[in-house]
């Protein structure tokens, strides 16, 4: 005992070690050069809760982390990242106007968004013409990126998502008869419906009834749902945006539809839990909260700490898009849009919250779809479908 004590004392009294204090990297100084990226989000109108706020939070978190880690090293010079949040409101014409305002600002090096395919499609045309890189985090319509040089996306495409839903309906729910209520004025909804129908039919099922509606008549679906109920479907596909689908779920139950519901990646458990859904509700995402990749765990922890609630897929994908731009800009070593585009196209292994992405041969990352069930206020992954 005494030996040990003495040894400990003698060690302590040993020659003091000389400690070198390294200057830790911190936030770049306020006068550092700035990299500005435009973020297009619905900050007014009915979509602000579902999409706009999530977009804003994901982008701001990414920019904050990048700046706190010392900014972006572009060719040896630390740059501060600045997010220029721009409201795209409700209408498509407003989205194109807002996007064009950003694209004609020479200090904007890239844009992130829009999240909805019907907005992302025309904005992609503008970005392509002006020659500014655009990354849409969530728009899943294949035409957003098809044939373009300047447009990339983080999410999966509707091909992947519709096929996964159809396969789950056939294999997981053993459904033979599907009915669809879709927004025919939305390219996203139309496209999903067509792709689902093709995959479901190919799998041996049959789409027995489909009803379309347009955005300006999106409050009372009971007549259409009544006609769909009459076809006695095994599953009901609602490939529509919030808040339409919330109304549709409520009115489907009222119309006596007890079949399982299939929804696309617009499901928000915060809004939908508590709605009547006797057959259960299934959806697909390219991301889920409990994903075990280290990048996702770090993102979820950071997000929850800053905002006090768990993130959704929109936040995750937006976060990835902003960080991908920062990463590409660092690799490019220059801030010009053309150099940035080339660097994005050379992205080989980007570890994001929504998965590892490679853009060397394509503009859409290869993402698996996760089929999830809405269960007691949260989404529970039930199956992963490889792309």
């Amino acid at each position: 005992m005494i030996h040990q004590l003495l040894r400990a004392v003698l060690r302590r009294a040993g020659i003091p070690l000389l400690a070198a204090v390294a200057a830790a990297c911190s936030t770049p100084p306020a006068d550092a050069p700035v990299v500005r990226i435009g973020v297009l989000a619905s900050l007014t109108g009915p979509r602000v809760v579902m999409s706009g706020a999530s977009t804003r939070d994901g982008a701001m978190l990414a920019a904050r982390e990048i700046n706190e880690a010392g900014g972006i090293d572009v060719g040896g010079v630390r740059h501060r990242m600045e997010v220029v949040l721009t409201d795209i409101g409700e209408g498509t014409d407003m989205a194109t106007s807002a996007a064009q305002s950003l694209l004609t600002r020479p200090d904007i090096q890239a844009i992130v968004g829009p999240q909805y395919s019907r907005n992302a499609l025309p904005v992609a045309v503008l970005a392509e013409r002006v020659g500014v890189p655009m990354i849409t985090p969530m728009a899943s319509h294949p035409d957003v990126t098809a044939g373009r040089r300047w447009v990339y996306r983080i999410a999966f495409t509707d091909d992947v998502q519709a096929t996964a839903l159809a396969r789950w309906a056939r294999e997981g729910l053993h459904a033979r008869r599907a009915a669809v209520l879709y927004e025919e004025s939305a390219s996203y909804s139309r496209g999903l419906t067509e792709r689902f129908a093709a995959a479901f039919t190919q799998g041996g099922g049959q789409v027995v009834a489909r009803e379309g509606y347009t955005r300006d008549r999106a409050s009372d679906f009971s007549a259409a749902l009544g006609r769909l109920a009459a076809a006695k479907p095994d599953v009901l596909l609602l490939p529509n945006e919030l808040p339409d689908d919330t109304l549709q779920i409520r009115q489907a139950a009222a119309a006596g539809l007890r079949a399982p519901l299939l929804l696309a990646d617009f499901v928000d458990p915060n809004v939908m839990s508590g709605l009547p859904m006797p057959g259960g509700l299934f959806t697909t995402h390219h991301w889920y909260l409990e994903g075990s990749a280290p990048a996702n765990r770090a993102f979820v922890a950071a997000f929850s700490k800053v905002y006090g609630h768990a993130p959704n897929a929109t936040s995750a994908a937006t976060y990835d898009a902003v960080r991908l731009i920062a990463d590409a800009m660092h690799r490019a070593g220059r801030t010009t849009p053309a150099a940035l585009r080339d660097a994005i196209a050379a992205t080989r292994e980007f570890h994001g919250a929504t998965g590892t992405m490679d853009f060397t041969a394509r503009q859409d990352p290869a993402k698996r779809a996760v089929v999830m069930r809405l269960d007691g206020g949260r989404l529970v992954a039930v199956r992963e479908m490889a792309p």
Partner: protein
Amino acid sequence: MTDAAAEHPLPRAGWRTRLASRLAVAFFLPAAAVVVFAATVGFIEMRSALRESAFDRLRAATDVREGQFDRWVREQTNDLRFLATMPQLQEGITAAARAGTGAAALDAMLRRSVSTQQDFTRIVLLSAVGGRVFAASDSTLLGQYRVSERHFLEGRTRVVVQNVYPAPATGMPTLTIAMPVLAADGTTIAVLAGDANLARVEEVVADRSGLGETGDAYLVDRFHEFVRGNDYDRQRFPRGIHTPAIDRAVSGISGAGVYRNYAGREVVGVYRWMPARQLALFAEMSTDEAFAPARRLVWEMMLIGALAVLTLALGLMFVARHIARPVLEIADAAERVAGGNLTTTAPVRTADEIGQLAAAFNVMTRRLAAAHGALEAQLHATESAAEATEASRRLLRALIDHLPALVAVKDLDGRYLITNASFGDFHRVPAVTLLGRSPAEVLPQANAIAIAECDAQVLATGATLTAEETHVVGSQERAFLTARFPLRDADGRIFAIGVVATDITERKRLESQVLHQQKLEAVGRLAGGVAHDMNNLLTAVRCNAELLLDGMAPDHPDRQPLEEIDRSVRNGSALTRQLLTFSRAHVVRPSALDVNRILGGMTAMLRRYVGTGIEMRFDLADDLWLVRADEGQMEQVLLNLLSNAHDAMPVGGTATVATENVVVGGPTGVVVPNLAAGEYVRLGVHDTGTGIDPELLPLLFEPFFTTKEPGRGTGLGLSTAYAIVQQALGAITIDSVLGRGTTFNVYLPRHPDEPFVAPEPLPPRVAPGSGEMLLVIDDEAPVRTALRRMLALQGYRIVEAQSGRDALALFQEHGDAIALVLTDVFMPEMNGPEIAARLHEQRPSLPVIFMSGYTASEIVRRGLMREETRFLQKPFNRPQLVDLVAEMLRKTQIS
């Protein structure tokens, strides 16, 4: 003076004419300046007036165009309204709705409208519900939905003009006019929407009337794009057009100014933001055209002014020639003075200013002669000052070159400007060869980077930076105390960095050595204290155990446990002895020793000690010198080192013990760290074992450092050996290679004495006592009791005292009956030697035995100076005690 004149010959030719022309020029320049000033003011005034007039013209032009634009939009709205109210259209819509199919008739009708009017590029009909294009002048638009676009949402109920926006379908700038198509009952059956032909808008706006020859008018939308927006413009301005005027106009500000337009031309322009159309309207004309009258005016003014000035200047020149003559005489005199003739004078002809000038010139010439003499004296003084500066420079150079510290001065790029001899010596090159080089070229990269950082800090703070640094050149690692300081010029600007580095390698080595010594001493004192108290306890345990054993039958059941206690006490006392040795508290009896002889006596024991798996070799030098050391301690050192060798070879090997004579230091001697020059005997113990991790080497002699498992080693072996060798003024060194083995070398100073003294023969055993009275003094009751029992068994009578005061009282009481005193050394109130001194005052021949477990004290040494006193090391066994008591009593009797 003459030299200067030869170098700069005075100009002679043209002198006269130049003076006159200078006078003319002196007049000409201000006159010309006035002319230019007048022309400039005229130009500015006129330009300002012209600009205002241009603004007025352009404003009027923009008013006209804004009105035309609005009228054009109204006309198109009316045309579209006319179309919307055509019965054929309403009928066609109703029919198409009924049929539920395409409406070819409607498509044709819309196509016709577009082709005849040319003011719309396309016209479509949108379904009242869903905003679907069900009829269109352009069939590619059919089937599109405009459900979330403003012209549909608002066009269902009223006429709406949607200002220029990028159309979602095409991305092109578009102005859309839309309105409901109403059925007879007033319900909306469709929305009619037309995209205006912006090329026509541009035609309306770009009409040159009222804009002059170079005028231009154009529209820019809120996205910084030309409304005419053809592909050429897009490729030229992919990110939109950005000029200060356009940026201002698009941000909603109307104004006017002279600026560079999108084409880089300087123009007078008026811009106007039209909030109702969300467009900026520009009307511009080139400044060349706008300001042409002002430029013409300037040229005219300049020409007339120049003619007037020139005429006057010629007249002036003529007058000037007459005034110049006396001046020229003075000039001649000045020329002679310039030639070196300082005695020259100029004629003073008149009393006017020129006469005064001549007189003043003569005074000046005299003064110049005087000043010339003074100047030469000053030249001498300057030369001696330069010599003094050079001497002090040489002095400084010599001083820094003889400084042991490293001195350097570097420029702001880190290149050496000055280096002293020590600096060069450290880098192993002549100091001059370092000039102009940087640390990165002469030092390892890490050091050079560290130096550059320090220099940067000095430059940043402007303050002296003092630091301890380590630098490596070749295999040499040296520690420096370095001061870096900025050198400033007279304006306080830093122009160089000075460095003074003092080599503190030796000082740091000594510091760490002193630290190690201090640690050993502290541990030693602690160990000594522990050993002292432990020895008291062990004495009592041992004496009592022996008492019990005494007279116990050989087969008594308690005998074995008691013997076990006795053995444990012996082991314990061996440990305390080691602690005492380590703390130098042991009584050391150094004598002249032959290390080979000691080894000879231990050979068999050493072979047993290292065990059977290890081969033991001896490599002993002949004629080995004697050393001065304690024999017992030398044996202990040897055993400790061999114990270490044994532990290092768990799977066997060879242990070699070697001795030799070594001369350390001097011109031919070997070098051993921390050892003074002189003659030594080396005792080497080499093993072929596992070797020692280099990181552990510095810890090896630390007390209680051990690599063995707890309980298997005390960690005192090597530190004890170290302490013993240090005490004997020797040194221990270690050479170890991991996996190859370790050699410990012990260096002991040579003993000058030659003879070997044989130990004294042991005294014969003595008979037990015969009733002598002994006074036992110890503050520990168990020790007293044990002593009483043991001595009583030997036939002595015992009186006990627990303190000095008791002892003195008992001595008074029993007086001469007390034959001998046994006393502890360290006690409260009065210590053993003090008691002995008081007793010896009364009876100097009284034999006294001091007992202690702790012998370091000076007290003990003083007490032992008398013949009548002896020392008994605690813990002792019965024979030691009894023999010493009997011997002391016998001596007293003999004397």
